[in-house]
């Protein structure tokens, strides 16, 4: 395989011809601008909604709006829509695995008092400055760390 044929195969140009425009997807200025304006509007919405008290729904709304914004950035600015399936799979799976961290730690936290209420109760604990065995040497440690 020669350099030229390799290049021609990859780019669909005549061998040796300079590549002015990539054969990959090029977003139009219009779509990028529209996405940007949508993002601005969504920012205004999320700020606006936060000024009204919907109780615990505020968090859900804020996160939903943020998720939509993130999706827009990823789809258009980051070209995921035109990218290969495998790149899509990897970045989305990172969110999926992150969700596992969220789901399990928050499940633990929120169901601690389900069986044994006392286990969710906070116990007194000695004051840091009087009972911290190593409180003082921290300064010493700083010296040689």
């Amino acid at each position: 395989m020669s350099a030229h044929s390799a290049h021609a195969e990859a780019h669909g140009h005549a061998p040796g011809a300079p590549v002015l425009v990539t054969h990959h997807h090029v977003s139009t200025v219009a779509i990028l601008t529209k996405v940007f304006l949508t993002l601005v509007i969504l920012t205004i919405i999320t700020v606006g909604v936060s000024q009204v008290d919907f109780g615990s729904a505020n968090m859900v709304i804020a996160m939903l709006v943020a998720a939509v914004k993130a999706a827009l950035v990823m789809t258009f600015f980051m070209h995921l829509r035109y990218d290969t399936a495998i790149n899509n799979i990897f970045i989305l799976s990172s969110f999926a695995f992150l969700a596992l961290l969220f789901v399990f730690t928050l499940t633990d936290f929120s169901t601690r008092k389900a069986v044994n209420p006392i286990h969710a109760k906070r116990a007194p604990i000695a004051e840091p400055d009087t009972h911290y065995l190593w409180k003082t040497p921290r300064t010493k440690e700083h010296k040689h760390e």
Partner: protein
Amino acid sequence: MLPPFQQGGTVQMPAPASTFAADVDGLYYFIFWVSVFFFVLITGLLGFAVIKWRRRTEDQPAASTNTHNTVLEVTWTVIPLVLVMIMFVWGWKGALNMTVAPGDCLQYQATAKQWGWAVFHPGATQPSYDPKTGRPVFYVPAGRNVKIVTRSDDVLHGLAFPAFRVKRDVLPGRYQSLWFRVPEEYIGQTFEFFCHAYCGKGHSEMWGEVRVISQADYDKSPRPWETEPSDPKELGEMVYKANCFICHTIDGTPRVGPSFKGLYGRTEREVFLGVGGPLAKVTVDDEYIKESVRNPNAKIAKETPQGGMAPWPEQLVTEKQLAGVIEYLKTLK
């Protein structure tokens, strides 16, 4: 001959000294025999194959080149799956039983700190130690449900009763609890409890004893945990063994804290007045020792300038015990 086991125990398990033991041990042995079966099966087949089909000549090809067998593969996927699901349900039920204490429990409290336990019996105002060894002791009436509520003053600790098959981490800032009931046939026996969560230097010394007694002995006055040595020196030695020995030796070698050997009565002892404070000279007398226990960071020995010992309030070391400690220190020449 196999090495010694705890009384009533077997090769694999200590004495089954609580009502949980039957269930846990039953499940343990179920898994054990299933494992033995599969282990013998695997190694047996492997050994047979290695001997039968070992390569005798350099150019010997494989006796068969079959690459899969769906029926076989599904079989050895499904059978283990069924077995482990049995184990899961069995184990989950057992664990739930250990977590949910019945309503009629005697409630004990245990506070862990680096590196010792303060064990409070129901209604007790001070922690209980063995008068001789200074080990923390639980006196537990047989046949009663016992619940222990724990907390920690500093780092993670753990409360583990191997003979009772229960265990629970002791967390700073949160209460944790466990419960058990010892059958009556274990009256008169002693079992150990341990700290199982690594907590630093004195981790392996944070163990104590559980003494199983009858209900009658439990109710007797004075309560078993209320007796302490009447001789002040012995009382002091008990308190030393219970609280001090991990950091303070009596043979002259300094550890985390200064050694107690020849400490009492020393004059011109150099101390820092507070952490990072100026150097001063004091005489080791009753007042100095009392202050060093109740407010350790007021005067910090020169040889261990990091200080940092925890104060021991009256709840943990009474005035009487403190007086005993002073008497005990006088004997350490």
